[in-house]
């Protein structure tokens, strides 16, 4: 018996997100009138359990074989609805989504035209739905190993957790030694523990771990594959090695803001102006300036952070506490010294931070609210000029040591790494998490996770937290042992293929190869991610991507073109193309 589509259309109000500018009642009536549509319903939140239950019940009772949900972007809830139709016994690829929120209600004012557009989008999705084909979802074996890029404190912790869980880890570090920026710190806030005491045990455990291989002076040059089966080409000195990994943790850290850029502070010009990082080194040597202990020390906060003129509007989150900790250290070692901190706001948000800030003030550190405008030379000393915004007057504070509390900036090479893995970056240049609240360690690339300051400024505790989170997330595919591969992949019709290889040239996943005997292109179904670049490069139309076939797309286009001509709508004939071939 010929296949007859029986389509259910479900229109979501999304609270008032859609219903405020789209006439839901009219849209539902319109959807019900479309060819092959058996039922059209609307509901406040289609993604909610009762919403999903509506769909499932209809599939069972009305024998629906295709489902269309008109709601948000498929990026948001396609997986939700695919799972819902699958639980009612339909193939998940017999589901199609019409995006009437991001592409309609959110971007247009409430009007007849907005409602009309929602109708057009639904009609187009229904036209495609009639042509949808069930696809087989397959599982592939996962390489039981992880690659951690970056050997700072976050990378070390992530590597250790994954290895402790029983998986092989390759840790790639660019420098000659692991440890990253934490290795340059003297003490840590708020408990004044030496950084060495925190870092060394971690480094020793990583070093001694039977399942961790540390590659030093090494760089990742290329990454191929996908979640479960990545293949990274790593260059170590002159040698190239291939590392297989089921998942990847990026922990490439940050760069310290270059203090030379803030010319008004005279870094590099006045020997008495140093940075918080220089201070770490000096304090290891008992803090001597020109052979004397400084008597007047000024700290300046927010150098390179919260600075619109530099394009760094963000807070670097550590500098307040770093400066407080260093100021306290000065007061303890040199009780005679006068210590002033110029600040905009003190951010003491972490556990124990506020208490620490209190301690620092109690021990005699003077906090002055104001952003210094310049540093002048006065004989052997410096004069820090600032507007004290609490007093509302310009003040000049003498100093024989000025410490600039430097912020964090994204690494120069983060663009290169982003393009290697096709990662997104936020406006500030740090790598972007998949969702700021719900998926803080994930990236938009499946199987690739973020740990530490490569995602944004963090202190050690937060870096460790994120590293352990990223490690746990990275272990999910490794523990499962199998990952589901995209079923909507490309295939080649061999009678049409001339083997010209243009598809292979545009494929970023290395999924296409010329068959050595048949002289036609073949698709590796595991590597293919279904992006469709090959299909558009093929002049013969020999490449098709399942779920986005020529017939399906033409059916959508046809309806959109017809739908755009409202006046003639009544005259339009229902096209036979709506009936699946």
């Amino acid at each position: 018996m010929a296949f007859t589509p029986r389509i259910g259309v479900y229109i979501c109000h999304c609270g008032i997100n859609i219903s405020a500018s789209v006439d839901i009642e009219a849209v539902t009536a319109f959807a019900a009138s479309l060819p092959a549509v058996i039922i059209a319903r609307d509901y406040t939140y289609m993604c909610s359990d009762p919403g999903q239950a509506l769909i499932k019940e209809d599939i069972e009772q009305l024998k629906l074989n295709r489902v269309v949900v008109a709601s948000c972007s498929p990026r948001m809830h396609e997986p939700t609805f695919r799972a819902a139709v699958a639980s009612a016994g339909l193939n998940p690829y017999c589901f199609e989504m019409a995006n009437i929120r991001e592409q309609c209600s959110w971007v247009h004012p409430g009007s007849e035209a907005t409602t009309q557009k929602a109708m057009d989008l639904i009609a187009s999705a229904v036209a495609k739905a009639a042509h949808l084909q069930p696809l087989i979802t397959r599982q592939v074996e996962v390489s039981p190993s992880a690659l951690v890029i970056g050997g700072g404190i976050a990378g070390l912790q992530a590597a250790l957790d994954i290895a402790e869980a029983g998986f092989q880890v390759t840790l790639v570090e660019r420098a000659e030694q692991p440890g990253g920026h934490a290795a340059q710190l003297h003490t840590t806030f708020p408990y004044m523990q030496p950084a060495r005491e925190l870092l060394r045990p971690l480094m020793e455990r990583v070093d001694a771990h039977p399942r961790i291989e540390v590659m030093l002076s090494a760089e990742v040059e290329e990454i191929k594959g996908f979640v479960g089966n990545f293949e990274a080409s790593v260059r170590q000195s002159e040698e190239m090695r291939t590392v297989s990994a089921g998942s990847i943790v990026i922990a490439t850290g940050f760069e310290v803001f270059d203090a030379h850029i803030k010319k008004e502070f005279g870094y590099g010009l006045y020997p008495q102006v140093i940075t918080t990082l220089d201070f770490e080194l000096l304090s290891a040597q008992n803090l001597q300036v020109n052979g004397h202990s400084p008597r007047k020390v000024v700290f300046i906060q927010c150098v390179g952070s919260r600075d619109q003129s530099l394009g760094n509007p963000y807070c670097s989150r550590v500098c307040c506490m770093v400066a407080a900790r260093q100021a306290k250290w000065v007061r303890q070692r040199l009780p005679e010294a006068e210590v002033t901190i110029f600040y905009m706001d003190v951010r003491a948000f972490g556990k124990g931070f506020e208490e620490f800030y209190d301690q620092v003030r109690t021990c005699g550190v003077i906090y002055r609210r104001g952003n210094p405008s310049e540093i002048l030379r006065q004989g052997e000393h410096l004069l820090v000029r600032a507007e004290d915004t609490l007093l509302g007057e310009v003040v000049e504070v003498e100093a024989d040591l000025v410490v600039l509390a430097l912020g964090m900036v994204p690494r120069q090479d983060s663009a290169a790494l982003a393009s290697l893995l096709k990662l997104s970056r936020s406006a500030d240049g740090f790598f972007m998490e998949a969702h700021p609240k719900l998926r803080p360690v994930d990236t938009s690339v499946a199987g690739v996770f973020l740990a530490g300051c490569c995602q944004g400024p963090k202190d050690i505790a937060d870096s460790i937290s994120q590293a352990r989170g990223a490690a746990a997330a990275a272990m999910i595919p490794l523990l499962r042992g199998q990952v589901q591969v995209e079923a909507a992949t490309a295939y080649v019709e061999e009678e049409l293929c001339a083997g010209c290889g243009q598809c292979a040239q545009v494929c970023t996943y290395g999924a296409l190869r010329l068959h050595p005997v048949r002289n036609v292109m073949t698709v590796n179904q595991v590597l293919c991610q279904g992006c469709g670049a090959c299909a558009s490069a093929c002049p013969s139309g020999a490449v098709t991507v399942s779920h986005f076939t020529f017939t399906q797309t033409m059916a959508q286009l046809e309806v959109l073109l017809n739908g755009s001509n409202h006046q003639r709508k009544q005259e339009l004939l229902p096209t036979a193309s709506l009936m699946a071939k």
Partner: protein
Amino acid sequence: MIGLFPLKDGDALTAVRSFLQTLLSNDVVDALYVPLESAEGQILPALVTDPARLESANPLAPVMLVNGARAISALTQKKAPARLGAVLRSCETRALVELVKLQQASLEDVLLIGVDCPGTYELADYQAIQKEALFALEDALQAAGRGEQLEGPDLRLACQMCTQPIPEQADIHLHIYGEGLAGGLFVEIGEELAEKLGLTPVLDYQVKKRQQVIEQVLGDKQKLREAEISALQARLGSNGSIAQMFAACLRCHNCMTACPICYCKTCLFRTAAFDHPPEHYLNAAYRKGAIRLLGDTLLFHLTRMNHMAASCVSCGMCSSACPVDIPVGLIFSTIGTQVQAAFGYTPGKDLQEPLPLVTFQANEWNEIGEVK
């Protein structure tokens, strides 16, 4: 080096024939792709293994039935099965280079024998020249050597405006421009091959004279090319002009068949891809008031242009094949020139130069994209 192959009976064609015979008889190649001339004067591309059959070879006849790149594609695919010699014009070699990049041909074990091209006539004009004995081929060649053309019909438009008549990739290059053919056939050739064929270097070769002739010929052709292209560009400027240009199209697809580079096994337009249900046409007519039938006439040309513009070598075979005289080649050359300029791409020049449309460069087209 430049070697001199003696003219027998003072006849260039006989010299070329016996030169080609030496390639087969000295075991330089196993087979030779070269046009043969039938007893009735028809020029037919052929694959020759018997040196005796080269008595009727005529690669100098100013006519071109097919672009030979297609034949070399058929003969080589991934690799030639034997050592193959191919006597080709410049536009044929350039098309061949594009086909190699498209994995449709191979230059491995292929000896390219290039001939300076004085241009070709449309088949009907060539037949008229023969029938009415307007001039002798030998005289036309001698004149071409001096950069002149004998009185008679015009060359094919593609040849009149061809700015690359000198083959660049050839392993062996037969000169026509310059010294003329009076002293013999000048052959540009590698030293090893020259020795094998018993050619001795010409010490007093008049390079300057050859260059002068070429410069003069190219100058004239370049001017015409620019004029023709800018005239067509002007016509393309107005809305609907491209539909107008292809208005007479019969959908015979001859242009596609004649194109040396159009390589699909089955053209998309010969499949059912554009067979729509009847309602589709009616709905389109409702939308627009009237539609042209069949609907894929202009789409066919636009699609072919999209596929071919970057690689088009301006051989003009499409124009010659068009039964209704649509200047397909000129349209493709005009669009192709712009596309090629936009990507800084010269088709047929360098095997190593990647095809621009399948090459990704992170930093290109910033003027129309997102600048980072």
